[in-house]
């Protein structure tokens, strides 16, 4: 089937798996379109042809033929294909088989009312310990224990997620207070951030550029403004950005 997803008005796709997902979305819309094209003309034709003034006496038996059966069979087959050839295998790949952490950029993202806290492990690749007793809305929203050796070089940003293109990213998603939903439209990524559960979200950005993080789940009065920036760098730029952040940390402290 030709891909009709370009006509659906989707945002530009910028991740490795996005095209496949769009293709699937196109396929489902094909199915919808075909059913619509069967029934809409039928409907109009019938209304005109069988109006009472034209056809004063109705037929007791009515429609004959196998249109309904053929259509139902077609729908069943189409749905089976969609399910077993696309949806179920795709889900396993998209959601349940994260790439190796050593090959990927690993970040923690924690939702709160109404911001995304982003936590990088820093050069040592280890996340510092966290303790909710240390949480301070202004200075330490994640409650990171900065005396922990693993935490010395950790970077924390708010509402700004930087990632390199071409390398898988794994985001450990959580929430401090209520349910949020971490939506990266351009990446075709969405995952609820549920307090009490840490979920790995992963994808490979392909196109450098500026994108957005939105919150898809109602999380309170500031839900509408829980917006973050997603910056996809070239690998080089990304290294520079990390370096600059580390330098700033050294110069200005926390």
């Amino acid at each position, binding site marked *: 089937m030709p891909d009709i997803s370009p006509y659906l008005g989707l945002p530009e796709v910028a991740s490795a798996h996005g095209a496949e997902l769009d293709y699937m979305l196109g396929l489902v819309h094909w199915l919808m379109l075909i059913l619509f094209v069967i029934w809409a003309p039928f409907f109009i034709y019938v209304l005109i042809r069988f109006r009472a003034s034209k056809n004063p006496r109705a037929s007791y038996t009515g429609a004959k033929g196998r249109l309904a059966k053929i259509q139902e069979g077609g729908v069943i087959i189409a749905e089976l294909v969609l399910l077993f050839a696309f949806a179920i295998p795709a889900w396993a790949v998209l959601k*349940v088989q994260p790439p190796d952490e050593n090959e990927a950029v690993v970040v923690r993202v924690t939702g709160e009312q109404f911001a995304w806290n982003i936590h990088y492990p820093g050069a040592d690749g280890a996340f510092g310990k966290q303790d909710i007793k240390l949480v301070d809305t202004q200075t330490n929203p994640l409650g990171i224990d900065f005396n922990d050796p693993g935490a010395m070089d950790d970077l924390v940003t708010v509402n700004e997620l930087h990632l390199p293109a071409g390398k898988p990213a794994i985001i*450990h998603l959580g929430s401090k207070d209520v349910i949020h939903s971490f939506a990266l439209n351009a990446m075709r990524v969405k995952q609820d951030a549920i307090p009490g*559960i840490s979920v790995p979200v992963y994808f490979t950005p392909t196109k450098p550029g500026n994108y957005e993080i939105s919150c898809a789940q109602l999380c309170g009065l500031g839900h509408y403004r829980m917006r973050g920036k997603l910056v996809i760098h070239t690998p080089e730029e990304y290294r520079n950005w990390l370096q600059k952040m580390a330098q700033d940390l050294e110069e200005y402290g926390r």
Partner: protein
Amino acid sequence: MSDSTHAEDVKKHVRIYIAVFGALAALTVVTVAVAYLHLSIVPALIVALFIASIKGSLVAAYFMHLISEKKVIFALLIFTVIFLAVLFVLTISSYHDQIGGHIVP
């Protein structure tokens, strides 16, 4: 019970009620006794639920005379049982099939 129940049948039933009461009391004692053995959770659960199911069935079958009830009633109840099972099984299995980990502070 239907219109055809006569006093004679009822007398017979009364004897059954007493017997069922005896069974229920005995089974209660058994459950409690088993509980004092402090089996590990899985066998304990199986025994406890097994006995509870027998007791529940006895009450339903004889006191609520389901055993001689009409078809309609069964038709209504069968769906309840199915959906109850569905609620249990799916809700609980979805707990186990969760991406990521539950954080227990």
